[in-house]
């Protein structure tokens, strides 16, 4: 079955009418949104860190454990066959979600971080030599920096960094100039978790491919918020985490082009990733199983499939539209407040708003907003290089999801005003 024929293909869902986006019904699906924090209704604006789970996904996890669970891939009994079918069905849902050409190009991992480490170990350690160059950008999350530093330290390769403008956009001219005969790999984030900048990854991939260089896209902050088509992007690897798009923690995806994955060495060794084992010689399994050693997070993968179904039923395009409205409202209101500085003002942004209050440390802002029931994040957001580039120790970050409302944006702004009063 091709990806486009899948019942809940995100491509067809995105054509649904705007009326399908019923915010009240959506919020009713998320029980945690009824929580009170310090006696106030929770205003959850930390979605870049993790997203909340709707009841249908919670129910799917419970149903799996209640009626379907057994270990997968090797059993001959009914439950094992059922669990295997559900796990592989989840893989096909992720294939459709990404519009990958084949299901075997979707590998389940424990999240974006493991996905990137898998590429480093499986591809990087096999193919990168001393003096080779790896291009990263200033705004990468530590997960797309540290594995490459580890690889560089081990192999003697060099890391080159794409510079950034003060508004949080990448310097594309400088990017192109970084390529030379030693360039072997590019790692780039599709959306900055600290600044919300949306990078022109399709264009950057084309540039890299013109030089014969493969590209890994960190999609952790993109996949939950916009339609992603890996064939259209033509990326070589794409990584993201389940818990950032309403799925469980402990599960994520690495997409890789089949030929690349087949050329790679395994990451983790153990059961399932082999065809046969003997002390005289072991034969590795085909993809995707080559990279799924041991019992996988079966329940979590099935839960991720259910989360993808849930999002696709709403439609990623509708989600992007609503979040853009939230971003515009937040940017306008906060941008007008005296003493507030917006950090990250790229022309193309996802619904992430980093900001600073004059004379008030982000940590204090976060604590005092929490007193109002507002959950934001204060710190370097696992992106110390971009903070250093902007000469900031930390920022306050509000990050929106499709279940947030304009009223919650108003609450954030009121909260910020209240914080300013405390420090006046």
């Amino acid at each position, binding site marked *: 079955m091709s990806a486009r024929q899948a019942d809940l293909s995100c491509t067809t869902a995105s054509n649904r009418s705007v009326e399908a986006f019923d915010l009240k019904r959506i919020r009713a699906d998320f029980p945690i949104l009824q929580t009170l924090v*310090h006696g106030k209704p929770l205003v959850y604006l930390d979605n870049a860190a993790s997203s909340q789970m709707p009841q249908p996904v919670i129910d799917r996890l419970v149903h799996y454990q209640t009626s379907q669970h057994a270990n997968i891939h090797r059993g001959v009994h009914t439950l094992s066959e059922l669990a295997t079918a559900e796990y592989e069905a989840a893989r096909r849902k992720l294939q459709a979600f990404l519009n990958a050409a084949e299901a075997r190009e979707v590998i389940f991992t424990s999240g974006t971080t493991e996905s990137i480490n898998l590429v480093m170990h499986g591809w990087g350690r096999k193919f990168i030599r001393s003096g080779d160059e790896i291009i990263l950008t200033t705004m990468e999350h530590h997960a797309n920096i*540290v594995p490459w*530093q*580890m690889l*560089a*330290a081990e192999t*003697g390769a*060099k*890391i080159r960094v794409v510079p950034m403008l003060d508004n949080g956009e990448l310097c594309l001219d400088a990017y192109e100039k970084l390529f030379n005969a030693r360039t072997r790999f590019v790692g780039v984030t599709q959306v900055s978790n600290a600044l919300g900048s949306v990078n022109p990854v399709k264009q950057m991939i084309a540039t890299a491919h013109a030089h014969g260089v493969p590209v890994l896209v960190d999609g952790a902050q993109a996949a939950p918020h916009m339609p992603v088509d890996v064939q259209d992007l033509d990326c070589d690897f794409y990584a993201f985490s389940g818990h950032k798009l309403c799925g469980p923690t402990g599960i994520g995806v690495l997409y890789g082009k089949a030929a690349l994955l087949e050329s790679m060495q395994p990451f983790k060794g153990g059961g399932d990733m082999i065809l046969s084992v003997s002390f005289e010689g072991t034969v590795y399994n085909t993809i995707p199983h080559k990279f799924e050693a041991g019992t996988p997070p079966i329940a979590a993968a099935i839960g991720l499939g259910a989360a993808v179904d849930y999002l696709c039923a709403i439609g990623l395009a509708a989600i992007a539209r609503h979040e853009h409205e939230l971003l515009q409202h937040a940017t306008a209101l906060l941008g007008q407040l005296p003493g507030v500085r917006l950090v990250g003002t790229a022309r193309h942004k996802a619904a992430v708003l980093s900001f600073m209050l004059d004379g*008030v*440390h*982000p*940590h*204090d802002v976060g*604590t*005092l907003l929490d*007193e109002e029931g507002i959950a934001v994040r*204060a*710190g*370097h957001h696992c992106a110390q290089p971009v*903070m250093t580039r902007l000469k900031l*120790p*930390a920022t306050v970050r509000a990050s929106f999801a499709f279940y947030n409302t304009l009223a919650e944006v108003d609450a954030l702004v009121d909260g910020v005003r209240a914080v300013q009063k*405390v*420090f006046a």
Partner: protein
Amino acid sequence: MSADTKALYQEVILDHNRKPRNFGPLEQASHRAEGHNPLCGDHLSVALGIEGQTIARIAFEGESCAICKASASMMTVAVKGQALPQAQSLIRDFLAMTTGKLDADAAPQIGRLAVFSGVRNLPTRVKCAILPWHTLQAAIDSQARVSTETGAEASPQRTDTP
């Protein structure tokens, strides 16, 4: 606002945040240490002029949140001019108070620092309040650098990219 947070962001602390005492560089320091909270970006350095067994001079610098800065400011006021054994005892008492192991009422030498007692109920902010005190201890012990993430002296492993 919950009682503990209200207590933390009261006038005394806000005052010390706005106008930190003994803030700035210290000429001819005899002891110095840096402290860092990587989780929130608090960063400060404490410099001492120890003469004999007394902390004759003390100053601190750095960028940090209100709780950290106020704690550092009040700390320098409290230990300036103190003999080393007294200062070390106060460090122990402050750390015990902020981690819930000591009641402020039971330690009269805590004095005005009792305003920080509520931080014991705000686990995410405890490290902010105690960072200056760990840094002071490190300066006294002549350790160059402390981090809230490794407790005592930090010797972080570097990736050393060529």
